[in-house]
């Protein structure tokens, strides 16, 4: 067998890492010993979503490297070491730490650095850039002693930096050299609309400002002096004035560069040395530098193909882009500035709603050349497809940007797209690939994401992906069956609406009018939950008993041997010594196994069904109430001790946790709901992994939603920041009831969110902006649940007739002989089958 060749990759940024994972997924992975240098102290992370570092994502969350990636693939990683020189003749790379490596093939993915104009004073204290996690850490630290921050540069990144400064509590300015924001992507009209929107958010935009000098300020740390004679006092200055390729290593070894810098590459991404490639922002192709990740990924794929002996070429990239800047949708496609000869323009401007749209079409009006969308960009996917695939425009192209206030859709149906149409530009997935994934059995968005990677990057193509899926399934004659079960031709959401509209109070009434047959464990449980959420009647009422699943039916958690466990409520995880003693005494008396749960309370195992009312009588007398551990309902609100005890605590997390648990206890939902409240950003209560998570800040409470631990962990989404308690509770009321109304059966909030069209922004529009005009109703519904709360165990033991069911045999006081315990570590546990046999034999002897 031939000896492995050595492949060295310099740079482990987004492009370098994606190249490595593409290489490892290819046939030639075993032909190369791969070595990579990473100058930064951490491996590749998602710089596109860097701003999310401020809203709570950690460096680990942003990481692009799967755990064990380098180890599994036998890649040697030199972390925190910079490759400094290349000897092209001797084919060796020498690092700063003195490591020398001979290569057969070399890939340069050194990326770019933020350009800072050499204005006098540019290196003063608190003058910074915005590119790495370290930069963000430095900005955060500096912001602690600052009041005013200014961003130099009104490009895409500059506006993100401005939002970050504002979120850090600074009064924020954007200083723009040119007359308009995002000058590369937007025309005057679009830029003006964007500036209005940014200013409405409280960020000042200063156009046409040429900074001459930065000097010591009088009221602030720094002062900027402009060419027009004006001055600006500011504590913090963040430069976001473009990028420059990091080509110094290539320059030093004599590789050919572009006229304005950058490592020159050909269509195979080869540099002037045939064994050296360059990809990403360090490379210049046809005198163009591509400052987006997608072209960098495409270059990486080209290199993999070339190493394989394939024929893929890099021939430029589409620089269309869509993003949400400070909550404002902005998109730019193709020739946005109408520089193509003979190009004609349609535009639509709506200052009332803050919407600007522009279409650039060819001379004959047939083809779309470019577009600008500000304030409303839902048409991006359709327009991009017209542009990239040169599809003939409809007779009246302006219909594509004019508001359509009827239901008539003017979108380009996915059927009109050719198989080669690129759907996901982040991972270069075309319609043909998606269709074959659907044919091979991917019937859901989640399955398609998993199989093709489409919509897992920026997510902008998600609506289009869904439209392809729907249309393919439809044409394949596959009806997507969303019926709850064979007894109800409706979704859970439909049934909820029917219950609301028709005031239905029993399962029998519902199935008689809207279903068929006698029901099953699926629809009975679901309808039981809907009725309980909406009417909040006692769940063991005669009409409802037959709807209660395993645990609800005896208000306790059934274990493997048919015995039950009991969990009394301990709001916020708080319990007094006396209560703890009372609990211990009950557990001891009934010989129960006790264990502390993950939700900060105590679970007692091994109770027989006939013991449940006796045990609960004693617990209620001691002051406990039901913990609803058996229900698909609010479980616990976990908390840390917060400012009450903790040296670091910022606010009283326990009091809030107790108040919230008391407010929402007993709320029946499509699935269980867990909360947590942390008293500071150290996050000891792990709130970001809960359905509802709350973290104290200096200015109020940050609210996270739809997180999950368990089987498929999901980091909660930051929903709103610095809320006062009243607003916080209002939002939670609305979110929970909206979840209860709209989720599928047994769907946790995390999956509910993943499947919600429009995602977090949609939920915000309903809960914060009240887009559907239902917030009053959502709150009233929650108030009804709160007003009708009862401790189900108290209700149960207060009425003798309820207790009849709590016995193993209807006709005997004997116990279930199959329930046998043995001792382990001083407590009981169910006997296993071998032990059971042994014990039975012993008994008979």
């Amino acid at each position: 067998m031939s000896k492995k060749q050595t492949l060295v990759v310099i740079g482990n940024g987004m492009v370098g890492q994606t190249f490595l994972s593409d290489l490892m997924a290819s046939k030639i992975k075993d032909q190369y010993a791969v070595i990579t240098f990473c100058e930064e102290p951490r491996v590749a992370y998602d710089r596109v979503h860097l701003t999310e570092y401020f809203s709570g994502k950690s460096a680990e969350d942003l990481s692009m490297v799967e755990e064990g990636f380098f180890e599994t693939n036998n890649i040697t990683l030199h972390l925190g070491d910079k490759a400094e020189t290349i000897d092209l003749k001797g084919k060796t790379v020498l690092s700063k730490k003195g490591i020398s490596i001979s290569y057969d093939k070399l890939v340069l993915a050194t990326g770019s650095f933020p350009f800072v104009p050499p204005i006098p004073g540019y290196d003063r204290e608190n003058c910074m850039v915005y590119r790495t996690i370290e930069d963000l850490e430095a900005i955060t630290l500096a912001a602690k002693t600052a009041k005013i921050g200014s961003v130099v540069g009104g490009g895409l990144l500059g506006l993100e930096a401005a939002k970050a400064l504002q979120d850090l509590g600074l009064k924020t300015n954007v200083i723009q050299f040119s007359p308009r924001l995002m000058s590369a992507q937007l025309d005057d009209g679009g830029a003006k609309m964007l500036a209005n929107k940014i200013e409405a958010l409280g960020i000042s935009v200063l156009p046409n400002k040429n900074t001459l000098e930065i000097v010591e300020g009088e009221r602030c740390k720094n002062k900027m002096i402009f060419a027009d004679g004006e001055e600006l006092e500011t504590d913090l200055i963040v430069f976001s004035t473009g990028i420059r390729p990091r080509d110094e290593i290539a320059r030093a070894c004599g590789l050919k560069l572009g006229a304005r810098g950058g490592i020159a590459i050909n269509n195979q991404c080869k540099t002037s040395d045939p064994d050296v490639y360059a990809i990403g922002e360090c490379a210049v192709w046809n005198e163009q530098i591509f400052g987006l990740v997608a072209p960098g990924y495409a270059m990486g794929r080209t290199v993999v193909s070339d190493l394989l002996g394939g024929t893929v070429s890099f021939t430029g990239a589409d620089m269309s882009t869509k993003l949400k800047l400070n909550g404002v949708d902005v998109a730019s496609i193709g020739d946005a500035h109408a520089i193509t000869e003979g190009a004609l323009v349609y535009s639509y401007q709506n200052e009332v709603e803050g919407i600007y749209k522009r279409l650039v079409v060819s001379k004959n009006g047939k083809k779309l050349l470019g577009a600008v969308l500000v304030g409303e960009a839902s048409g991006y996917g359709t327009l991009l497809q017209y542009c990239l695939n040169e599809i003939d425009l409809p007779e009246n192209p302006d219909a594509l940007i004019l508001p359509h206030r009827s239901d008539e859709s003017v979108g380009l149906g996915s059927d009109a797209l050719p198989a080669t149409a690129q759907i996901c530009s982040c991972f270069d997935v075309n319609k043909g690939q998606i269709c074959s994934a659907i044919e091979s059995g991917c019937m859901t968005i989640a399955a398609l994401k998993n199989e093709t990677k489409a919509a897992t990057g920026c997510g902008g193509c998600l609506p289009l992906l869904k439209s392809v899926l729907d249309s393919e399934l439809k044409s394949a004659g596959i009806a997507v069956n969303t019926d709850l079960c064979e007894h109800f031709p409706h979704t859970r959401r439909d049934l909820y609406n029917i219950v609301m509209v028709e005031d239905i109070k029993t399962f029998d009434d519902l199935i008689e009018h809207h279903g068929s047959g006698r029901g099953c464990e699926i629809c009975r449980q679901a309808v039981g939950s809907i009725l309980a959420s909406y009417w909040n009647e006692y769940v063991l009422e005669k009409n409802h008993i037959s709807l209660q699943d395993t645990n609800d039916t005896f208000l306790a958690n059934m274990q493997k041997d048919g015995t039950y466990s009991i969990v009394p409520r301990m709001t916020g995880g708080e319990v007094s010594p006396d209560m703890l003693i009372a609990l211990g005494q009950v557990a001891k008396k009934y010989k129960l196994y006790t264990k502390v749960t993950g939700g900060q309370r105590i679970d007692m195992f091994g109770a027989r069904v006939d013991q449940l009312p006796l045990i609960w009588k004693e617990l209620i007398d001691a002051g406990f109430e039901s913990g609803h551990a058996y229900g698909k309902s609010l479980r616990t609100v976990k908390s840390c001790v917060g400012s009450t005890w903790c040296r670091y605590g910022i606010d009283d997390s326990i009091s809030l946790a107790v108040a919230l648990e008391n407010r929402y206890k007993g709320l029946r939902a499509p699935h269980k709901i867990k909360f947590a409240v942390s008293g500071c950003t150290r996050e000891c209560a792990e709130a970001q992994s809960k359905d509802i998570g709350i973290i104290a800040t200096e200015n109020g409470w940050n609210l996270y939603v739809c997180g999950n631990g368990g089987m498929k962990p999901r980091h909660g989404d930051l929903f709103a920041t610095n809320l006062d308690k009243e607003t916080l509770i209002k939002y939670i009321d609305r979110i929970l009831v909206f979840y209860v109304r709209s989720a599928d059966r047994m769907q946790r909030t995390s999956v509910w969110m993943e499947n919600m069209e429009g995602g977090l922004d949609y939920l915000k529009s309903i809960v914060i902006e009240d887009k559907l005009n239902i917030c009053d109703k959502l709150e009233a519904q929650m108030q009804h649940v709160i007003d009708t709360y009862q401790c189900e165990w108290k209700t149960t033991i207060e009425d003798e007739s309820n207790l009849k069911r709590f016995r193993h045999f209807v006709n005997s006081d004997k116990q279930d002989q199959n329930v046998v315990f043995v001792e382990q570590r001083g407590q009981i546990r169910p006997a296993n089958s071998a032990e059971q046999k042994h014990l039975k034999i012993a008994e008979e002897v």
Partner: protein
Amino acid sequence: MSAKQWIDVCSQNDLQADSGICALVEDKQIAIFYMNLENKVYAINNFDPFGKANVLSRGLIGDIKGEPMVASPLHKQHFSLKTGQCFEDENVRIESYSIRIEKGRVEVSL
């Protein structure tokens, strides 16, 4: 044909509408289900052969394509209330028993 031996179990009032109870009859645990709209009773063994616990009387009942069934409260396997046949595994069938309501009393025959 010998006449069936009917054993008195409990009062009709002990039955739960569209739900189950458990009776001890000659050392056998019998799960008894009552469908109130049809006024029909069913009896099968209480032991769940998958979960290996005496729990079937505590399962939710209903029908699968018209066949009355109970879903095990442990792992939701379905059993016919008429025959004890498991819907998920044709090799699994639990005992079923004759049952009737006679003058307000529930009686089974083993």
